[in-house]
């Protein structure tokens, strides 16, 4: 039987960061994944390919917008095969790089499916055939998640896609329905709309991206109104059927009004569920809750002391950067360091156009908790940089504790919000005061100035947004 100090099951951004960290701490590490090289959903079927395609969508959008600046391009010719090649090249470059980093650290990569025999050993069904039994001192569960399905909407048809199928870019359909108004559906909807598909979105709740503050959603809604054919809120999909020209979808509005429409393709993006089945966890003391999440403590140790769990399988939010951080914490905990996963701010980014990003306390959370906060907003209409980009559809807001004047949360909507939020994360983690942001010189002309000017607004007025003195 082979032996390893640390077995990590799942080579996504949680698993490989944990593996690298553990190796750097001197551990002998075995990383088991279904793919030959690390990367996981994030690189193969998630963050990375979707961002590559969103970059294309952005370019197509700007080419159209340029018309009003006096630059005219011919309508784009889309070579779908070439686009797929480029996307695959991006993935290959990054996963190849990770494979090299694993090798440099002497992390052993095993391609296959792992199954716990007990609290200290695994059986691996190798992808190339054969089995291996592996004895470990510690294990980290990092098996991630997969697209969730709704049984009533399950239709065995190539016309019905999940996010993985949508990223495969089979074709560019004339019409597409996205079921689910969360970030995955809106990002992929944006890609297909840019490529020429008439995209509709149906969302069961009253708004898009439910966890985000509503004032951040408004500019996105205005943008989607132009890009998408239809956005149906407070609407349920009552049923779908394969028709001869496409998928026939029956909608039911909140008032009970029923309507029908046929779409060439349907993308089901109703969330993700953790991959906690078929791992042999029943042979251990690991506890899985009713939603399928593995229960873990602040160090990410499960009820089985030798086994840790990180990333999507260990609970919300299911985000790559949260998984990576947990992976490092778990590796350090196994090395005996006194560490815990205790962030003040986990940033969330929706890579639509405009992007939406937030971290720390949101205004709506503060409202639910009856927590007194002061919210200041700096509209990008007053930002010089936004004007030069012709993208004044943005907003930067700070959620501030009125007593300590500490920045508790930051929310941004606008182009590049995903990059800008990093300053917000730093501010919340460092317990920065509004005054600290105000007194830090931000480069001009950049969108980052909106963070500084929002902080100035807390004290009444800012250089580029005049608010008359009260009283």
């Amino acid at each position, binding site marked *: 039987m082979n032996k390893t100090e640390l077995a990590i099951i799942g080579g996504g951004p949680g698993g490989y960061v944990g593996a690298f960290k553990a190796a750097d701490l001197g551990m002998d590490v075995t990383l088991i994944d279904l793919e030959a090289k690390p990367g996981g959903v994030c690189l193969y079927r998630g963050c990375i390919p979707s961002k590559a395609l969103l970059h294309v969508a952005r370019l197509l959008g700007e080419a159209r917008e340029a018309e009003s600046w006096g630059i005219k391009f011919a309508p784009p010719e889309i070579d779908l095969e070439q686009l797929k090649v480029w996307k695959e090249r991006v993935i290959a470059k990054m996963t190849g790089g990770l494979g090299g980093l694993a090798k440099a650290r002497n992390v052993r990569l095993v391609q296959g499916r792992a199954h716990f025999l007990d609290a200290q050993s695994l059986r691996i069904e190798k992808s190339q055939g054969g089995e291996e039994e592996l004895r470990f001192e510690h294990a980290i569960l990092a098996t991630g998640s997969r697209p969730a399905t709704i049984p009533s909407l399950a239709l065995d048809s190539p016309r019905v896609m999940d996010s993985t199928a949508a990223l495969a870019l089979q074709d560019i359909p004339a019409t597409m329905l996205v079921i689910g108004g969360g970030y995955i559906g809106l990002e992929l909807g944006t890609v297909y709309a840019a490529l020429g598909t008439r995209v509709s979105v149906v969302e069961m709740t009253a708004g898009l991206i439910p966890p985000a503050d509503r004032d951040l959603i408004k500019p996105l809604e205005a943008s989607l109104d132009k890009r998408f054919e239809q956005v149906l809120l407070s609407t349920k999909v009552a049923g779908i059927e394969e028709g001869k020209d496409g998928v026939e979808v029956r909608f039911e509005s909140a008032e009970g009004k029923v309507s029908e429409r046929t779409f060439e393709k349907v993308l089901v993006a109703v969330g993700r569920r953790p991959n906690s089945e078929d791992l042999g966890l029943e042979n251990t003391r690991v506890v899985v809750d009713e939603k399928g999440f593995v229960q873990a*403590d*602040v160090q990410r140790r499960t009820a089985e*002391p*030798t086994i840790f769990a990180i990333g999507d399988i260990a609970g919300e939010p299911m985000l790559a950067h949260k998984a990576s951080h947990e992976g490092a914490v778990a590796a350090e905990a196994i090395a005996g360091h006194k*560490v815990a996963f205790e962030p003040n701010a986990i940033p969330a980014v929706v890579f639509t156009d405009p992007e939406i990003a937030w971290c720390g306390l949101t205004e709506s959370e503060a409202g639910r908790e*009856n927590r007194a906060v002061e919210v200041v907003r700096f509209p990008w209409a007053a930002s010089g940089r936004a004007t030069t980009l012709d993208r004044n559809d943005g907003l930067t807001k700070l959620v501030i504790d009125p007593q300590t004047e500490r920045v508790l949360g930051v929310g941004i909507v606008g182009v590049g919000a995903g990059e800008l939020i990093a300053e917000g994360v730093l501010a919340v983690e460092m317990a920065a005061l509004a005054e600290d942001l105000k007194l830090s010189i931000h480069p001009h002309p950049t969108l980052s100035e909106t963070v500084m000017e929002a902080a100035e607004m807390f004290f009444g007025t800012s250089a580029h947004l005049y608010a008359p003195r009260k009283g």
Partner: protein
Amino acid sequence: MAVEFKLPDLGENIEGGDVVKVLVGVGEEVDEDQSIIELETDKAVIEVPSSVRGTITALHVKEGDRVTVGQDILTVAGGASEVPIPEEKPAPAPAPISEERSAPLPVSSPMSATLVAAAPSIRRLAREIGIDITQVAGSGPGGRISEDDVKAHARQLNTAREAPSAAALAAPKVDLPLPDFAQWGEVQREPMSNVRRITAERLSYAWTTIPHVTQFDKADTTDLEGWRKQFAKKAEAAGGKLTPTAIILKVVAAALKAFPQFNASIDMADREVIYKKYCHIGVAVDTDRGLLVPVVRDVDQKNIIELAVELGEIAQKARDRKLAPEDMQGGCFTISNLGGIGGTGFAPIVNPPEVAILGVARGAYEPVFSEGEFVPRLIMPLSLSYDHRLIDGAEGARFLRWICEALENPFLLVLEG
């Protein structure tokens, strides 16, 4: 959002207490600072105020329960907590494979409800040295916690740990096994009250730590009794009762000034004697819950009538269970007057960290041989127990004699006191 209200830190060395009364119910609205429970702690019943507001969804304690600091008291919904409440349990230490896990694991939560005002590096430092960051006071702008704040907190905890509690020191190494009393007749077991437990611990500590000497003397209080009756009206007018104890308080304060080593404590660890420049005197009060010792402040700065009034008030407070823990702290010396009950004398036990205690027994007329004949005089038996580590026998004798003479001739109070 549901918020747990836990029993907060109630001050000096209080680890918990018995719930005497629950003042709120499930479904009621609770506001910050509203009293939630009455808790019988270190010799006092105190009302515990809420630090949360919202609707109570669950009560985790009932009358008679013993609760400790940090224990869940109630849960409120829709409320907000003004003070950060530590929610995270400490991470379990790496455990060997064979170890059974008995306690349920803390469940992972996506985000902590309280955003700690400390940089990630400082939070990690706190964790590494075993400090609960939510307990650290931040000295920076907006209450930001610095590295120095964490270290200062750690130092403070270390100091507190080095001074072990009386309870810890008093705990006998081995408890002798008790026989089965039932074999000789019917018995009833009752839980020890907090007052009884603490009294037992403190007295065991005093008895095993302090080398006691008790000296006895007698004061002729015939004249004093006359003056006491003469001036009783004045005290009554001020709202007090001119008791012998009130007068003895004043006399002892003067004696402590004349003999400063009796107003002192011993620091064996640092081999130092601590002399106190203040004069707070404890008075033992018999209550239906046991012995309580409220402390009268600045006795040297008050006249006897003021002391009489104050004594009446604190004794009443003690009997009404209204004494706060701080009302019983900071004493320099203790007076135990059993004269109201009877007896001809007793050897009291020193109340540490004090070094001496005065016992007063019942005064009685005795024949005293004076100027060739026996005359009836009102004689008050007094006893002084002291810590022989600090006080020599001759000093003890002089101190007690001084008190007797001052009681016989109060002019001494102004002359030397």
